[in-house]
């Protein structure tokens, strides 16, 4: 029967080629537009560190004065997005988590040893010792540094694979010297091209998606050498705009907590720290207790995905709804026009179910064609997004789950769209229609 109904459907679709093309186009455009945007959001909201992310947390303390908190950026966010140096160092020293690290983004001028090469700027991260182990950054050679080297402000650096290759070619970089902003650093480790997407650990900004950090050096070394830092540096009160002030936030702070008990204990510890500091006259915002964000919750809180992208996705979904309504109305009109044909079939013994299946197959066929077109349109849409200059552009690729998701969405949408018309069609009474003819 299926083959027969399919044949009937093909014949019916061929009878009105323009209309068929119109319906396929409507489904295709709707599916294509929404799948493009859903795919972009899907790849952007992926877990940057699968397997580890559940153990990583961002503690957040609000040391600001109430007026500063109120006037801060565009409203709604009630927590600062960074730490003061004082709090970061206190938490590092007290060492209550399995691992903890403070960090800030920066950039430095790299002078290649080969005089023929021009100096250039590279982006990097100033971090403390636990960074590599906590985030599971894979070393190709060498290792990170120790807490003692942090305190000694050691002139050591870990390079990412890209910069190591650029400077030293295929030769091993470990042990070599590299000149960053006019100071010699000893390379003690090389990472295996590590660039989690998004770069969750850094301050939220334009570089969260896209380019990888090319070097990592001890935070206090960078501060001593007054290298250039990037990111928000926000001061209040009479904090004389100094990196070491307790009235300027600029550092990111991460901790690793292996189980819920530790998470709970760390939360208690933060509360105690907060109260203790309040007793010393800090943390004037009594209504803003400390917070402990999980990695994914932190990314959501920081709006890592631009609002405009999620708005574009909802627009596309709205467009899909308009397309689907259009297709339902067209199918309904088309099926009901064949009331005469349906009456004859019913009068000759076809059950309602048979009529329903016949028309269901016809709409599913349109849906499948529309889905295929949608898939092609989505690929084109993703291609055009990859041409955008934004950092996330290169991520816009359809993976296997999204591929199946697209087809599933297309078929589900079209079956759903065909359901109402097919149902109305099977309600056509056998005799009445014959009479009116």
């Amino acid at each position, binding site marked *: 029967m299926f083959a027969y109904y399919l044949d009937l459907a093909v014949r019916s679709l061929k009878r009105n080629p323009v209309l068929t093309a119109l319906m396929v186009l409507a489904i295709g455009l709707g599916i294509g537009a929404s799948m493009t945007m859903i795919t972009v959001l899907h790849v952007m909201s992926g877990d940057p560190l699968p397997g580890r992310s559940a153990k990583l947390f961002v503690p957040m303390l609000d040391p600001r004065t109430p007026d500063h908190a109120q006037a801060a950026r565009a409203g709604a966010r009630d927590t600062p997005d960074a730490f003061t140096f004082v709090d970061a160092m206190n938490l590092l020293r007290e060492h209550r988590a399995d691992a903890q690290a403070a960090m800030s983004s920066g950039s430095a001028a790299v002078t290649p040893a080969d005089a023929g090469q021009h100096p250039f700027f590279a982006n990097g991260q100033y971090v403390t010792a636990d960074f590599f182990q906590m985030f599971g950054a894979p070393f190709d050679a060498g290792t990170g540094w120790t807490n003692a080297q942090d305190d000694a402000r050691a002139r050591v650096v870990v390079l990412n694979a890209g910069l190591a290759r650029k400077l030293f070619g295929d030769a091993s970089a470990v042990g070599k010297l590299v000149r960053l902003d006019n100071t010699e650093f000893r390379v003690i480790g090389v990472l295996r091209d590590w660039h989690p997407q998004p770069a969750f650990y850094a301050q939220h900004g334009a570089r969260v998606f896209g380019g990888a950090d090319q070097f990592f050096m001890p935070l206090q070394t960078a501060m001593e050498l007054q290298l250039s830092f990037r990111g928000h540096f926000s001061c209040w009160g009479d904090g004389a705009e100094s990196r070491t002030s307790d009235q300027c936030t600029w550092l990111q702070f991460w901790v690793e907590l292996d189980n819920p008990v530790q998470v709970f204990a760390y939360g208690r510890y933060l509360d105690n720290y907060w109260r203790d500091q309040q007793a010393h006259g800090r943390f004037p915002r009594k209504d803003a207790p400390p917070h402990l964000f999980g990695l994914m919750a932190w990314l959501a809180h920081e709006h890592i995905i631009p609002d405009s992208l999620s*708005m574009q996705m909802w627009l596309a979904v709205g467009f899909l709804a308009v397309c689907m309504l259009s297709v339902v109305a067209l199918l309904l009109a088309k099926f009901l026009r064949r009331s005469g044909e349906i009456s004859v079939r019913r009068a000759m013994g076809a059950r309602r179910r048979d009529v329903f299946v016949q028309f269901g197959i016809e709409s599913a066929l349109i849906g499948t064609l529309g889905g295929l077109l949608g898939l092609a349109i989505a690929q084109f849409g993703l291609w055009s997004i990859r041409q955008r200059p934004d950092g996330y552009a290169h991520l816009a690729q359809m993976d296997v789950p999204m591929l199946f998701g697209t087809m599933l969405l297309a078929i589900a949408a079209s079956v759903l769209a065909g359901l109402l018309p097919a149902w109305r069609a099977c309600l056509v009474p056998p005799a009445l229609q014959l009479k009116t003819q």
Partner: protein
Amino acid sequence: MDILPILATLRRHKVILWLLMLEIALSCAIICNGVFLIVQRVQHMDMPSGVAEHELVQIQQAPIAPPPDRYARAQEDLATLRQIPGVLAVGMTNQVPFGGFSSNGNVMLSPTQPHRTLSAAEYFGENLVPAFGLHLISGRALVPDDYVDADVVIKALADGSSKGFPMPTLISQALATRLWPQQSPLGKLIWLAPTASFRVVGVVSTLARANAYNTATAQYSMIIPLHMGADKDQSYLLRTRPEDRQRVLAAAVAALKRADPARVITHARTYDELRSGYFRDDHAMTGMLASVILAVLLITGLGIVGLASFWVAQRRKQIGIRRALGATRADIVHYFQTENFLIVTFGILAGMLLAYGLSLLLMMHYELPRLPWVYLPIGAIALWLIGQVAVLGPALRAAAVPPVVATRSV
């Protein structure tokens, strides 16, 4: 034309009618909000910078090794740049309107004030008014005697000393009006720290912030006469005739490289490039919104064409009968046009409510203002037009049905 028979006919196609109305309502909601979003983005993109945009180029450079005297190096560089033919003015700044990298200060109206009054952009640097092409509307310009080396001020701030203050400053008109409405700002004092006071000596008409996300505070700026010295956060500004920009830019980069080969040019661009880079996202978003609106109109229009064609085919016989009974071709066309107008109108009425609901949803999730009612008629007019255009073809086909059809059976 009597609309009652049309309504009576429509009652026989309730389900299709509902679907079509829902589609039109949804389109109306998307179009109204979409147009509103576009207008907002366009207004945002039109934000004035205050600088002579088409005459400006920016060069940001960084020395690999810090020069022995960065203040002297800055003066040398400025002198070098001034020599380039076609340069009208040179300057140096720590930030550029819409440059992205911003430096802001907490402005207070008294040294003992517990909380700041507002945050304003702090422009430091050399010769900013002529180099940016700003308009001084009252007071005096900054003169060489006003300038102090940045290190001196930083040291005074760190020591809590008020030596050297108050310093002269220029502020933007928007900031002056906000701080002292109805009064002359000239001679007034503001504080950026309890020891750091500044006396307003002049007012410039407009100068936007480097990071202007909030339209209300985008124009709060002040210019402070500090020598910043040559380092990597500072930019050189060159003003020239629009047609000379590319040549001047290339010559300036070459001249700076010649003066010190061991430096890296991190940015060399015209102000127009900088500005379009800053608003790139808004530009992409307006494009996206406009194409969605067009696509929605297209799909809705095609849907109407399809349905109207069906109805025409279905009613061939009735049309023939009407023609045979004396209806003119125009009557038939009008019938379909009125029918379409009614359907679209019902859809639009529902669509206005939906548009409002959608606007509330957007306000909740995206910090957007409420949809002003003037946008509602835009969606309505667009849909009425597309409806009439779409129905015209099928209606003309209906009018072509000959009266003789009435006499044929089946």
